[in-house]
């Protein structure tokens, strides 16, 4: 599918009034709740300090994916190709946040965001996105983050390698470079389970037809049409690795490992291989002490998981988080869990979402966990 198919985006509303609405006088008059708590009642996407977006289009490129086109509001500050954003969807009265890498060109990033979501059979959010989300729906956005971005000046020789839904950040890079009129060599290699899972294939082929510096190749890894997996030999056949070569790789851990090995064997500069992956953490059984690490993000401390509650473990690590009742009543120790899995010892409920508030005094880690502490 080519970029031209994306529906035209009307100019975002409220941009002119946004400065007035963000003024300190308005903040005083509409305090303590703030201007967004009033604006959202008129139109949920019309907030001026919280980044939000409206769904413009939902399309299915492949049976196992859904591609969203979003129009962000004036509080959204754009992204660099390759970065990720946290997108929140309200499902059953609860906001569920997931991380996605926008796939669009960063030049359009203020007006338009494209998210391609791989649908997992059990995935609460991904199934909601595919089956229930309709144009007009609201999406909450966090700021763009991540170091998986292209250097400036742009690499003269670049290979973009992706596996499965890892295509999105490298697609953003490819579209950004094409929109810039970049004339360096680009090789685009995508690995997916089967042909029906190839994401963005028509558009990439079209780009390759129009940009003679771009070569693209799609490969299936399973079934009758399966081709060779990524290796030094296969990479050397597509891309001549030299000292001025760069690689950007995004996909499952095995693909990253294969890319790193091939890069090393072909003599690529280690720092010029950019990599990003996504790994689900293994979970401990109830009652067992989990294996892994507790990261305290604000204080920069990391400790191996020990027995007891997270409050006790934070204190043992030399931190002094606020606490009150130490029995799960008063919520004084409530703390933002950035990611990871914890179990509520009072209710047995497992928390695996990103950006979830947990009560430290009645929570124990169920795997690696990162806390805003």
């Amino acid at each position, binding site marked *: 599918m080519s970029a031209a198919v994306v529906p035209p985006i009307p100019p975002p509303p409220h941009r002119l009034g946004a400065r007035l609405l963000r003024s300190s*006088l308005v903040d*005083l*008059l509409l*305090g*303590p*709740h703030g201007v967004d*708590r*009033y604006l*959202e*009642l008129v139109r949920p996407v019309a907030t001026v300090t*919280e980044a939000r977006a409206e769904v413009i289009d939902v399309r299915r490129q492949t049976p196992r994916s859904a591609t969203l086109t979003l129009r962000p509001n004036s509080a959204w500050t754009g992204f660099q190709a390759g970065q990720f954003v946290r997108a*929140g969807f*309200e499902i*059953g*009265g*609860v*906001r*569920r*946040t997931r991380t996605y890498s926008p796939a669009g060109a960063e030049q359009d990033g203020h007006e338009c965001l494209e998210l391609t979501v791989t649908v997992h059979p059990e995935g609460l959010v991904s199934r909601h996105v595919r089956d229930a989300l309709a144009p007009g729906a609201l999406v909450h956005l966090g700021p763009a983050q991540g170091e998986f971005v292209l250097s400036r000046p742009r690499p003269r020789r670049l290979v973009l390698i992706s596996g499965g839904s890892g295509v999105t950040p490298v697609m953003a890079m490819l579209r950004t470079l094409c929109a810039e009129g970049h004339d360096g060599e680009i090789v685009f290699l995508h690995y997916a389970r089967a042909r029906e899972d190839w994401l963005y294939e028509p558009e990439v082929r079209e780009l390759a037809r129009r940009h003679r510096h771009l070569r693209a190749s799609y490969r299936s890894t399973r079934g009758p049409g399966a081709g060779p997996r990524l290796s030094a030999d296969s990479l050397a056949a597509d891309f001549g690795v030299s000292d001025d070569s760069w690689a950007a790789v995004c996909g499952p851990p095995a693909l990253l490992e294969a890319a790193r090995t091939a890069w090393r064997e072909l003599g690529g500069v280690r720092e010029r291989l950019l990599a990003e992956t996504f790994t689900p953490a293994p979970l401990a059984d109830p009652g067992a002490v989990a294996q892994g690490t507790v990261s305290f993000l604000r204080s920069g401390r990391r400790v191996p998981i020990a027995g007891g509650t997270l409050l006790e473990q934070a204190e043992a690590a030399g931190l002094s988080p606020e606490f*009150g*009742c130490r*029995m799960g*009543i*008063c*919520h*004084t120790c*409530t703390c933002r869990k950035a990611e990871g899995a914890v179990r509520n010892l*009072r*209710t047995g*409920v497992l928390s695996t*979402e990103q*950006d*979830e*508030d947990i009560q430290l005094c009645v929570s124990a880690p169920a795997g690696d966990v990162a806390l805003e502490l």
Partner: protein
Amino acid sequence: MDTHTRPELTDEQIAALGDELDELRGRLIMDLGQRDTDYIRRIIKLQRALEVTGRGLLFAGFLPPAWVGGTAALALSKILDNMEIGHNVMHGQYDWTKDPALDSKRFEWDTACPGDQWRHSHNYMHHTHTNVLGRDRDIGYGVLRMSEDQPWRPRDLGNPVYAALLAAFFQWGVAVHDLEVERIEAGEIEWSDKRDILAAIWRKGRRQVLKDYVVFPALAGPGAPFVLAGNLTANLTRNLWSYMIIFCGHFPAGVAEFSEEEVEGETRGGWYLRQMLGSANLTGSRLFHILSGNLSHQIEHHLFPDIPAHRYAEIATEVRAICERYGLPYNTGPLHRQFGSVVRKICRLALPGPRGRDGRRPEPDPERAADPRPFPETAAEPNLALAA
């Protein structure tokens, strides 16, 4: 302690009581969802609409109907903001929605008291140490003599006067609660220990005063006196209302108090028991419950302070049945009776004594003791959720 209202339960019974209530809590938590999010958003929408309407009407406050309507709308807005929304959101009742606007840690309310201080003095100090004399600073708010066990001092003669002043300036009374002035007075801590608390009260209070008493009146130009008077009246109304509701939570006759020794080594079941014996409900209409922030279901609220408050009415029958099974009192009554009982207590405790024969408590309210029915009031109201 008041043996008339405190049945003796064995440790096993207390543990079983705790298990039953934990089970009820677990059921409630599993059931939370869209209905609760929708409910609180509807209340918020109503509150913001009342606020905007009230402030708008007050700009035409030179017309008497506009002034009355505007003031009433603003007062209702502040009552909803502080009680059904602020108090409940800051308890963490909606943290599970993961909506930052409903996040207990971030929420600020339209009153002088900084949210952070409230979360400490109320959620922790009061809800953990409910009715434990010497620990629960809500017993008299450091100003009033509300218990026989607080030694009488001559200045307590002013108890009714202090109570009336506290009611009129309740938002400021709540705002300075965490300063613990009585401990400063007693020399336990210094003013300098409370510098940060004081600074935060100043920052929040100043903005509230500027907004209600300077900037909004100024925006009305020649109509400034009407806006000022309307805002003052709305704040006063909210103060009196919230004072009445809150004082009915733990001070009506028949509510038990506890000593620090009694709660030493308290189990989870024991904590539940103390919440049940130490709280009192109010009966009334659905609207009354909403305007009281469902603190009219104080017993249910103290058992499950982080469960969305609009659910309390739904579980009241079950909680009451549990009380009945364990022979526990379920203290409830209409506002006029419960508040009347509070006022009598405030006046009586202005004077030293009277104490019981053994130098302990006075006899309980004869009106109550004479009532042979275990549950003199009608059953709890049905489902409170607003119609969609």
